[in-house]
């Protein structure tokens, strides 16, 4: 019988106490892994959302910049307009690699649900928009060839909801305009999945917004001085500049504030779990004073006793930590749904990304914390005086 099996059997003597302590450790590991996963998933999701926009700067009509950015990220509607002349002005800047014009429009569809809903359409320039979104792939068909055709390209979820395939007609409610679906995109996990893309000129014509835009996506040379370029854009009248880098920084700083509080709670949870480990192992040591005394009188050295007790702590923390990691994997989607419910903006895709490195990190924190907690009980056990312990046991 080796030291591992002795330690394991000692833990099995008090099954309920061991299970409760391991559960406490598991809960701490669960909180840690979920928070680490959220930390990583939210940031990478936000980066993905911003990168998938295909442009680094978005020009919109004057209004709240954060609202505008969120609307664009979530594919909503913006009802402020810019004159199309702004394209020439912006394109004359040497930093600009490409621009793409956009016009978002929405109509109220009274036949969606009990009280109706907005159906949104994004007019895009077929000559520039696809080049800025090279990651978009088609499940069926392709992009429209001209900017004035009565055609539509549907994101995967939009096509799924409307049961549309290439060749099917699509009706714009309220206006009664008929379009033909020429493309259905593959699922991307971004806001594009729920978007219905129409040729820009067609949207301007059917919504009577000729010469108007709601957004201008600007792709900037990577080596350009972004600050200087943005400053020049700020001088343009009646437009606002939404820098995706700024949006990302602003959202991340907001999330970071909340994260500090949550990590503090997680730290307290780990401390409580460590206190539980100290309590459990110390009680176990005190109950076994006589037994430890006999072991020492048979030749066991203090280091042997220390290792035996420490091993119990290690096994307990391993079981709890492993259980907590499994729990975090099992509940990642539920936790994600809860977070999405409470946060005003959440990126698309997996937001709580518990992968191997995160699982290993959370396990490591719990394991090391547990081992530190086991030092004092193990030290107490190692210091037991054999004769005194056996005498006390006899009395």
């Amino acid at each position: 019988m080796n030291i591992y099996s002795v330690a394991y059997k000692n833990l099995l003597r008090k099954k309920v106490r061991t299970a409760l302590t391991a559960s406490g450790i598991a809960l701490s590991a669960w909180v840690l892994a979920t928070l680490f996963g959220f930390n990583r998933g939210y940031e990478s999701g936000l980066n993905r959302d911003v990168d998938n926009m295909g442009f680094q700067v978005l020009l919109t009509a004057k209004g709240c910049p954060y609202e505008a950015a969120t609307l664009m990220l979530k594919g909503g509607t913006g009802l402020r307009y810019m004159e199309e002349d702004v394209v020439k002005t912006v394109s004359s800047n040497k930093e600009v690699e490409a621009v793409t014009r956009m016009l978002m429009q929405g109509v109220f569809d009274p036949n969606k649900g009990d009280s109706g809903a907005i159906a949104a359409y994004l007019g895009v320039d077929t000559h520039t928009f696809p080049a800025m979104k090279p990651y978009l792939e088609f499940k069926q068909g392709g992009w429209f060839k001209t900017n004035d055709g009565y055609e539509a390209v549907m994101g995967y979820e939009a096509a799924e909801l409307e049961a549309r395939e290439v060749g099917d007609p699509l009706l714009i409610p309220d206006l009664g305009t008929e379009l033909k679906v020429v493309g259905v995109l593959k699922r991307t996990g971004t806001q594009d999945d729920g978007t219905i893309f129409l040729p820009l000129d067609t949207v301007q014509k059917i919504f009577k917004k000729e010469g108007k835009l709601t957004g201008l996506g600007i792709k900037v040379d990577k080596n350009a001085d972004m600050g200087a370029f943005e400053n020049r854009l700020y001088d343009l009248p009646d437009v606002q500049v939404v820098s995706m880098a700024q949006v990302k920084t602003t959202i991340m700083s907001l999330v970071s504030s909340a994260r500090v509080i949550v990590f503090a709670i997680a730290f307290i949870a780990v401390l409580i779990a460590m206190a539980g480990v100290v309590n459990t192992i110390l009680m176990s040591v005190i109950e076994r004073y006589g037994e430890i005394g006999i072991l020492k009188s048979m030749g066991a050295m203090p280091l042997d006793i220390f290792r035996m007790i420490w091993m119990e702590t290690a096994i307990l923390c391993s079981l709890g930590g492993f259980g907590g990691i499994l729990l975090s994997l099992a509940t990642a989607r539920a936790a994600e749904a809860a977070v999405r419910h409470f946060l005003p903006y959440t990126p698309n895709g997996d937001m709580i990304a518990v992968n191997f490195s995160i699982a290993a990190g959370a396990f490591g924190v719990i394991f090391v914390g547990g081992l530190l907690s086991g030092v004092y009980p193990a030290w107490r056990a190692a210091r037991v005086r054999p004769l005194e312990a056996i005498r006390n046991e006899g009395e």
Partner: protein
Amino acid sequence: MKKLILLALFALSAAPAFAAVGCDLNDPDRDVARLFPASTGYKTQYLSVKTAGGAPLLARIEARLGDKFKGLYETIDVPYTLYHIYKGKEKVGYIHGVNQKGEFGGIQAFITLGLNGEIRAFYIQKLTSKGAAALRSKEFGEQFAGLTLADFAAYDPVAGKVAGEGPAARLKSPSPAADKDFRNVLRSVKKNLILMDELLFSREQK
């Protein structure tokens, strides 16, 4: 321990899978109370042709429907949401919806059923059609009350016609603009009743 490690490795390496789209009530608490005024609660159950019987069941459903399940979105793995409706502890009926391809967009059509499978109410939750208002009208929906699967047996969804003079033959399109989607709605009701029979009533009898 080995099993736990394997389970953990599987969970860490699993890629997200996207299921086919189902047909749920937008606001079940509100909608159930409106569609079943006397109800006090409901339970939700998820059913699928794939898990209930697979390809042989799908073939039987298609044979009874008289049409194939078509397109990218009418597939064997569609999750069907069935609402069991209660008044106190007593079950009083069911609500079940299906997605149906319409002329200009998707249709989400629900029927409420009594315990014997007869239609109590009909409700179109979402519809994009030139005759949408007429198809969602109270008068049109009331035509379906009391009909059963047997009444729809004579409906041929491919031809869009009802053979004979049964109750289903008396259902009328509410406006010429809605004719095509009227036929799509009838197909959705027949499909819905067959699914309820195959996935629920026939199994309860067994």
